[in-house]
């Protein structure tokens, strides 16, 4: 790995550790802040002594090393899933006149703007399905 990549690698490592701590907090139902504090202490301990502990049976319940490894593996899987959430997808509002989901009719951007104008005017008005204004009262 080149030297120029090191800050990115370090940052990814740092974030992965934080995500693992969050996963641990969520799975154990413990405080987010407390979990991060404990996780950091565990990592520091493992840095000094990166070995399996006591009566390790290669299960996370019996060994700190295995527990941390298991959560970091889960984070790797989570990251691979999130990699496919592509940002450059069209994320604009899918506003189509007449489109219906659960019985609701969605508005076009033009209709939304028209409605906003109408409400700004402070008068009760509605918009016909064809987008033309209808005034009431």
């Amino acid at each position, binding site marked *: *790995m080149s030297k120029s*990549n090191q800050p*990115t*690698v370090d*940052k*990814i490592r740092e*974030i*992965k550790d*934080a*995500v693992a701590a*969050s*996963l*641990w*907090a*969520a*799975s*154990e139902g413990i405080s*987010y802040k407390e979990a991060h504090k404990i996780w950091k202490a565990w990592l520091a301990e493992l840095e000094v002594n990166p070995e399996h502990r006591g009566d390790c049976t290669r299960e*996370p319940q019996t060994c700190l090393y295995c527990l941390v490894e*298991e*959560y970091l593996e*889960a*984070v790797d*899987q*989570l*990251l*691979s*899933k*999130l*990699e*496919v*959430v*592509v*940002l450059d*997808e069209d*994320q604009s*509002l*899918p*506003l189509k006149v007449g489109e219906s*989901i659960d019985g*609701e*009719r*969605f*508005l076009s951007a033009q*209709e*939304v703007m028209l*409605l*906003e104008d109408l*409400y700004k005017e402070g008068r009760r008005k*509605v*918009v016909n399905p064809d987008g033309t204004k209808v005034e009431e009262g």
Partner: protein
Amino acid sequence: MDKKYLEAAEKAFHLMHPVRLKLAQLLKAKPQSFLQISKELGISRQLTAFHLSYLETDGLLDSKYIILKEPRNDKAGKALRQYSLSIKAIKVVDWIESQLLKLK
């Protein structure tokens, strides 16, 4: 390790915040309006906007405008923005939920 992987790590970090994970689970179950989210999570509107903006920026949310149709309601005809999880995000949250049960 590329930029895309770093972005994925940041998204994971954002999503794994306890409030945002609850928010994502809430939207996975049913699309909700801004005020409904705030009420369901029991947090202020400002905080709701703060957490929603993370998920939205990370491309995990979809949103649509709907017209309220309740009869005899003076809110009828009002446009309302409704948030939901994107299909890809639903799969991610499903996976997280299964992992949480497995890791427990």
